């Protein structure tokens, strides 16, 4: 059994995730988001001009198109705010990811819980030079974190950094396990 230690830590002494300086997403994320949102709602607006659809729903075709265009404008505004607000930060022991406009969320994943890191990008993201970073944890999909909007260079650097952190953790854990054979062994 590991040595049980219970030294109280005052809240003021705890590292605060709010103090981390957040790196904003790549500048290319904004046009990427605007483009995808616009394309989606233009497509819907185009659909709404089909004669059959408006008869089905009961609105006049012009109303549907206007509705689609208004929604498109609204979501593009959201996308603009999203690109401004989204960001990530690396601390000594964890990754912080901030996203969301109406529901502002901050997600924190300690390196000690990351088992694997991958980068990926879709075809449109490739055009804008963007990449996604996915951190896999033991908990499965519920605790995996997908960081979007990184430019390719940063994504590779962060991935490399995370892999090193994970490796260091495993090494130091093995050292610790050798020193204290009674400690809980990692999986």
């Amino acid at each position, binding site marked *: 059994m*590991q040595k*049980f230690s*219970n030294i109280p*830590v005052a*809240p003021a002494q*705890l*590292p*605060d*995730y*709010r103090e981390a300086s957040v790196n904003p997403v790549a500048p290319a994320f904004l046009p990427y988001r605007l483009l995808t949102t616009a394309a989606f709602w233009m497509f819907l607006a185009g659909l709404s001009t089909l004669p059959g659809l408006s008869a089905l729903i009961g609105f006049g075709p012009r109303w549907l198109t206007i509705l689609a265009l208004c929604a498109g404008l609204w979501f593009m505004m959201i996308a603009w705010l999203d690109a401004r607000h989204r960001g990530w930060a690396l601390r000594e*022991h*964890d990754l912080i990811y901030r996203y*969301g406009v*109406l*529901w*502002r*969320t*901050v*997600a*924190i*994943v*300690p*390196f*000690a*819980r990351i*088992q694997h890191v991958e980068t990926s990008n879709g075809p449109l993201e490739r055009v804008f030079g963007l990449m996604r970073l996915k951190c896999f*944890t*033991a*908990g*499965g*999909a*519920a*605790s995996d*974190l997908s960081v979007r909007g990184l430019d390719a260079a940063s994504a590779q650097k962060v991935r490399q950094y995370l892999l090193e952190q*994970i490796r260091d*953790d*495993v090494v130091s*854990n093995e050292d*610790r396990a050798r020193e204290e054979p009674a*400690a*809980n*062994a*990692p*999986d």
Partner: protein
Amino acid sequence: MPPTEENRPEEKGTAAEAQWHRLAPLALATLIVSRTVSFIQQNLYALAGLGAGFAFVEALGPRELVMVLLGLLLLVVGSAVIYHRRFRFRLEEDALLVRRGLFEKKELRLRFARVQNIQIGQPFYFRPFGLVRFSLETPGASEKEVELPGIRRELAVWMRQQIISQTPSAEPAENLEPALCLSEESTLFSASAGRLFLHGLASNQIWFLTAAAAPLLPAINNQLAQQFEDPENLPWQLSRLLEFGWIAAVLILLAVLLSLLLLSGVITVIRFFGYRLMRRGDQMIATAGLLDKREQTLKKEKITGLLIRQSALGRLLGCWSLVARQASSSAQRPESRSDHFLVPGLRHHELTLTSEMLDLPEHTVELQGISKQFQKMYWLRLLLPLLLGWFAILRLPERDAGLLIGLAVVLPVLALAVHLRWRHWGWAMQAELLWVRQGMLGLSMEVFPVRLVQQVRISQSLYQRRHGLASVRLTVPQGIIQIPFLPLDSATELANRAVYSAESSLIHRV
């Protein structure tokens, strides 16, 4: 080691220390039955459709239908035979190897260190043959659970000992009990039939029974309708009862409910008969069952948290239950799985055995509530519009009385539900342990060491931002724990503490 009919030398031909085992012959019978049942369950709609389809085609009759059914049965039996014949397993120094599969042989390697719990079950039809069902559970996305549907009991017990204690010993010959380790075994709790019956009454099983019985309702309804058409068919008591109209309906409903409760109680007594919770060294062992005797073993270090639960009826009956939480990456809530480690029928003072499962400095703790804005928000956003709608309907020239009365009943109930939900949501952080309680009528309390946290999410909706509140979502090995509508300072402190605890602990990659 004397080779028996159940030992097979390794395929390469060299006599290896660890030998491949096969399933017992009788297991084939159970495999056939279980596969048939699951086949029917999965393809119920297809089979029903098939039957209906055949009924429409004139020339074809029942004979063709029977032939198709026989063909399907043959398929299922054949697949069971192939599965049974190809099933192999072997115990290595630090892992269990299982080879199984119908078309392609899949080999699974389960390391002992990853095993969360071991279950050995002996249904009554296995008992004369000395066979058991052996199943292992490990966390992980692929192949979480391995079941050996029928092996010798001695082999199963020996395998369990190897996996848990990790002290290698010789494999037992047939019909000999392996030498068990001599550590002390202490009984922590045993449930009498009365407590089990109460647990059955209090548990949510009754709703599953109702849901299971629901498909039968139309058939029962038709039967009853046929009977009632002719008044002479009715027993005189029932016809007198029916004269009272709606009172009769209520009484009949109560009778049905009562019988479901009784059924639930009896089922629980049978399922958990003779429940005993023991501790042997660092293992927690639970034995229970009348028709299917089960022994569940888990290592204390594999317990990631506890769920202390009291359903609505449980609060009336003073009946608690305890679930030992373990790592699970399935989306399905652990409670609904049949193999979770459940301690039924506890009284309040017996909850002290939580300290046997988890290092708890205290058994109860003062909880902080969540912000009243939670209640206010739901009342304003959900109920107020409904209330206004109700008034609007009242003003209408032609109003639907049923809808008015319905809403008039539903609205206070919803308001009460929101209030109860708000009132019962509470949390406390004490000595690196997080306690979170929630519930509406029933209560459930989760407690776990905060260092096990895998991810922390703090989110704020527009409403919450305006009122300085936030919701915290923690992902832990057993699932997701949420606390909504906390003051922002408390939320950030909780998040920072959880993250700090996870990062400064010795256990990584959990």
